């Protein structure tokens, strides 16, 4: 059965530097798609182009050539208000360093994407309560980020990414600043949400443990997709082993 992919990337290229200056090609001819409900990981060593790719997908940067379609919308040419609306409605973003506003309580941080769309207060309250239940942070809602642990902060950040039911969730090393227990909890949560709500997740990471939660992993090196690995119903432990093996051959 052929379904329309949520993310569809074709011939994507990114070159840094002006034409007459020294140029650097960060991404070369990237092609891939993310199906609805898929949990996709992007792995690669430092400098491989992971962050550039994520920036292009999240519309934070503009590609030199090629197309990025998200939820049936070409995003590489969006501008101004359309661009802002796209970010606010279609993408839920989780950052490595949480990016919570420390002057707002957890509740206010989570409500922000809804306030931006002028969702009525009663609906906002309900939506925040619901997502807080899912992420088990209901009792933390009135605390400020400074009063929360790293794991709690990241769950609040995840709640903010989820609250407006975006078309896709993107994570940029979301477990990078967490201890192993919190990291595992967050990844469990993400895959639960991915399975129960059928939201596709795109995870950029260099950590094989995080990657083992994915359905499919794209390995990037020097700006190109070098390898693709599918879980195909394997247990997570086995998949983890496969990833480690792959990484091993990759670095040879």
């Amino acid at each position, binding site marked *: 059965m052929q379904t329309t992919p949520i993310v569809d990337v074709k011939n994507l290229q990114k070159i*840094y530097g002006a034409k007459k200056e020294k140029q650097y090609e960060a991404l070369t001819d990237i092609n891939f798609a993310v199906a609805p409900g898929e949990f996709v990981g992007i792995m690669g060593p430092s400098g491989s182009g992971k962050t550039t790719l994520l*920036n292009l997908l*999240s*519309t*934070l*940067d*503009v590609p030199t050539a090629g197309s990025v379609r998200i939820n049936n919308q070409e995003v590489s040419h969006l*501008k*101004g*208000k359309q*661009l*802002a*609306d*796209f*970010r*606010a*409605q279609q*993408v839920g*973003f989780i*950052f490595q360093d949480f*990016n919570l*506003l*420390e*002057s*707002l309580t957890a509740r*206010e941080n989570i*409500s*922000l*994407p809804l*306030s*931006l769309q*002028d969702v009525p*207060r009663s609906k*906002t309250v309900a939506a925040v309560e619901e997502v807080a239940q899912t992420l088990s942070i209901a009792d933390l809602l009135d605390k*400020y*980020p*400074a*009063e929360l642990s790293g794991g709690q902060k990241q769950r609040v950040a995840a709640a*903010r990414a989820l609250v407006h039911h975006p078309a896709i969730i993107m994570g940029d090393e979301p477990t990078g600043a967490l201890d192993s227990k919190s990291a595992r909890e967050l990844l469990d949560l993400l895959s639960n949400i991915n399975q129960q709500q059928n939201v596709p997740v795109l995870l950029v990471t260099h950590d094989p443990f995080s990657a083992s939660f994915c359905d499919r992993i794209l390995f990037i090196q020097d700006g190109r997709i070098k390898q693709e690995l599918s879980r195909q119903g394997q247990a997570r432990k086995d998949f983890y082993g496969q990833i480690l093996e792959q990484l091993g051959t990759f670095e040879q």
Partner: protein
Amino acid sequence: MLLKLAITGIKQRFRDYVVLLMGLIISSGIFYIFASLAINTDFIKANSGISIAAQVFMFGMVLLLIITMVYVSYANTFLLSMRQHDYGLFMMLGAKKQNIGVLMVLETILLGGVASIIGIILGIGVSSVLSQFLFNQLGVTIHHFSPIYGPAMIDTLTVYVVLFALAAVLNLSKLMRTPVLKLLHVEDEATNVRVRPVLQALAAVLGIACLAIGYYAMAQIMTLQLTAIPIALVTITLGTYLLFSAIIGGVLTAIRKSRFAAKRLRTFTLAQINFRVRGYTRILTVVSLLFAMALGAISVGAGFQRQIPTMVASISSYTISIKDETPNEAKLAKQLHVKWQKSYQQTIQGDTAYYNEAAFAKQPFPMLANPAAKNDGRVKQFSLPEFKKKAIISSDFLALSPTSNHIRFLNNSDFNNLKGQKHQLTIIRVHSNVQDRKVLEKITASQQRRFHEPFFNLGGGYSGFVLFNNLFGGLEFMGFFLGIAFLAMLASCLMFKILSGANKDVVRYNMLNRIGVSQRLMKQAIWQEVGTLFIIPGVLGIIDVLFGLQMFKPLLYNPYEIVGWTILGFCMLYGLYAWLTISLYRRLVVPPMQLSK
């Protein structure tokens, strides 16, 4: 190597250094301008007309010193926050703490010295332009005033270098106590915003009480005399501070919890303001006081400016009298903006001055409508018999014949047959003494030369104008001059504080950009956030002034007469600063929507 690193550090944060240096230059410039007036005792003695001016200036000086201390301490905290990462890096690379210490102290003192020298030069420039402008606008003559005043230069330089040396030592001890790793990772620990209702209520009540005492003290200046000023200064400062810390936070928290907040970026903006207001309590207090002082000074200056014409108008019905006009005087008189002009003939015989009755019947002599105490400057023309009764006690009329002891009115034929010294008198009233002051001065000088009369024997409103200008012009000038100087100080103080906090906001706005906040909303949020920081002290400052003008009741007829206009003008200038700050801030903080094109 260290030097090279230091220079690279400065290059990287060039924008921040420009902000820092600009702030310091403006502050030292204003300090110099104030000092050049306040410690110039000749100037104060020659121009104030009232004895308390010198003390008022001393209070002003003390206050400015305190403000400068706050300012310099802010500047140094900012400087240290910019440098500590570099210092940490130097130490990582193996530099000794002592070397870093020396580097830091040198940097700090050098910065203070350079800023104050440029500031003094700027101060001299501004002072000469501003004083020239004010002299021309107000039509006052100021003695012993010079934009270049040696002692003030020395004082300014000393104050700044000493303050910076002190700050450097404080920074040094702070630096020495901080471990290297902490220097490298200076994350701002978020201040915990907790509401403590009882404490806040107490602070609010205490604050209002303090303000009430201060305002009452100012209103009672007649009984309290000079003690009113220090009482008012202390209580109003304390009251403003308490009120700021108590009320603003509470009100903002209440708004945040309300339905209103759940729209767009409002929660964020409110939280930002709340955060800021708490962190800025000290500076907002200083700003509201500066605002009040600047506005007060300008209001008083404007009050005097307004008062002089009123007083002049009530002294005399006409502006000048010209005896036996020469062709040259006639030419000058043509240049005047005449409201009305009358001519009479006069014959002096012995110690009696004779006039032709018929002339006054045909062309009534305008006189002040009411006697001195109730006089409002209105002019009336009386019937001949009534005029004759009033004329002999009217100083305006008597001034036309300063050397005669008696006045007689004769009928036409008697007057024409009379022998004696014949004079032609022209009396003129102009629309504005200020406007015509240069021509009036020339005519008066010419008359004095010809008739050898002492200046104040000439009569007319112009002599009164000159007298009052000598008395009050100095105060008027000081009011305007200081008002504008204080405004500049205040604006740079607030601007500096706000711009120096931009670094923290850059992160926040970056995040907002990522989650899809449009540029328009972000700009709006900045307008609201920074605008509020300007509005709050402005409103408090206006309230301070409205009460503070009570102090000038003994000096001015009605200090409140045109306060509305001064407030409006002042707010426009203040608004201009706010706009400038907001635009600069926006440029620093709002990120581009996308990284590269």
